[in-house]
């Protein structure tokens, strides 16, 4: 029997816990604190983070997932609406004090892993400075910029981690595509699109970047352009490597014999040639893909780009 007691005594001795419990938060081991922080909502995490240095690093080490995030900064306010899951209540709201809002925004970027993140920052020099000064990463699977110019889009995309799968840039604000194409995250993303672009250089520049980077089959870029000439500019740029060309499509070869790049024009009963908004889809395709395998239904991919606009135009022509 004494043998059993010895064994038991040895077992308990080996367990790494002190003989006396303290009863304050500060005496709790870090792994327990992290478990507790993991059960808190974002606003409480933000408060705990502000209590002391140790708590700050603990809170910031714990990631939290959100399905939707919508960040809007205007001249009057900063609004961060975050929804953990579909149909959940909004976790964060408006900040009248924009400086306090930015402080919070940086915390959000540091700890939140977004499924979908929408950013709208307009005409705020301080916002751009705050973004530039943020040194951490931003994690989002799908990111969308609305009314943001290069000063916002470029630094944010540069700070994205590798989890990004799709990028949408609404180019109502002036946008220069060259600077965007230099960003590694854009070069590696499987899908991205520019909406309401006002220049005709996007298609051939994106295709050229794919050529240079030997981008994977399945990589897609879509664009809606407000002026004529993008299709022609693309054809002119790649004149020497055109494999086939029609009114709707141009197919070019690449340096990789296994891959071609296909440009499609979105033309159907709703979006005709003379329509003020032009839709394009650019894809890296396998070189062996036959013409008969092309997807002739452009309605589907246009609808995904601008669902409401498409419905509106359908109503107009009926």
């Amino acid at each position, binding site marked *: *029997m004494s043998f*059993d*007691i010895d*064994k*038991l005594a040895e*077992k*308990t001795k080996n*367990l790494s*816990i*002190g*003989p*006396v*419990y*303290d*009863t*304050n*938060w*500060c*005496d*709790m*081991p870090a792994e*327990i604190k992290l*478990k*507790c*922080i*993991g*059960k*808190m*909502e974002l*606003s*409480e995490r933000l*408060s*705990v*983070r*502000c*209590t*002391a*240095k140790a*708590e700050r690093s603990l809170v910031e080490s714990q990631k939290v997932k959100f399905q939707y995030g919508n960040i809007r900064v205007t001249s009057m306010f900063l609004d961060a609406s975050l929804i953990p899951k579909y149909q959940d209540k909004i976790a964060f709201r408006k900040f009248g004090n924009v400086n306090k809002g930015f402080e919070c925004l940086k915390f959000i970027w540091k700890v939140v892993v977004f499924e979908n993140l929408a950013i709208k920052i307009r005409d705020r020099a301080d916002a751009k400075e705050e973004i530039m000064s943020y040194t951490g990463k931003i994690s989002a699977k799908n990111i969308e910029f609305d009314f943001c110019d290069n000063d916002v889009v470029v630094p944010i995309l540069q700070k994205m981690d590798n989890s990004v799968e799709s990028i949408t840039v609404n180019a109502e604000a002036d946008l220069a595509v060259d600077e965007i194409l230099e960003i590694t995250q854009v070069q590696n993303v499987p899908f991205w699109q520019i909406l309401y672009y006002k220049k005709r250089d996007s298609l051939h520049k994106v295709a050229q970047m794919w050529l240079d980077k030997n981008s994977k089959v399945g990589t897609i870029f879509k664009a809606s352009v407000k002026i004529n000439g993008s299709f022609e500019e693309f054809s002119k740029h790649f004149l020497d490597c055109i494999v086939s060309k029609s009114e709707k499509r141009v197919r070019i070869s690449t340096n990789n014999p296994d891959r071609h790049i296909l440009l499609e024009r979105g033309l159907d009963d709703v979006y005709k040639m003379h329509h003020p908004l032009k839709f394009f889809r650019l894809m890296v395709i396998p070189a062996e893909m036959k013409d008969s395998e092309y997807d002739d239904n452009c309605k589907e991919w246009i609808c995904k780009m601008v669902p409401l606009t498409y419905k509106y135009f359908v109503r107009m022509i009926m």
Partner: protein
Amino acid sequence: MSSTEQGTSSAAPAEPTTAPESAAAPEVPESFYYVHGKDKVVHKVSAGALQHSALIHGMISNLGYTEEQAKANPFPFENIDGDILQMVVDWCNQHKGKPTPPEDTNLPKQKEKLFDLVLAVNYLEIKELLTYCCKQVAMMVKGKSPEEIREIWMIPTDAEDEAAEKEAKKRAGKEAAGETAAAAGDAK
């Protein structure tokens, strides 16, 4: 060790209950084990209830006690207050063989007790109860400002922390100097 039947917890189940089985299956008697905390009060707990604690479950498996041996050798948890161990035993008994519900509203609201419970549960490796406890700790600060949280959880400010650290260093330096002087005195 006062592992007498008088010391046995009143919260422990009077008799082990067994799940209804088919008439053909012979009834297997449930085995019991004994635990005590800092107050030496022994709690009789069924093996089924103790399944919640990975630590105790592991101990039972390793030691291979018979009923008699278990009775004579209660598991000593000297680092757990008696009332906290009682709470843990009660919880294990209440949730014996049952799926744990998503919420547990019977946890202590009192801060000190809750923190002690969290530490005990963590030590005893009771995963589900630890989840409830952590949730309860998180609820303590719901809607509270950083200042309020600092007050509730007695978190020192960074300035207070630095001052305490400085003080500790100063004290350690003085003690070291004292020891050197004493050693020099001894050498003489």
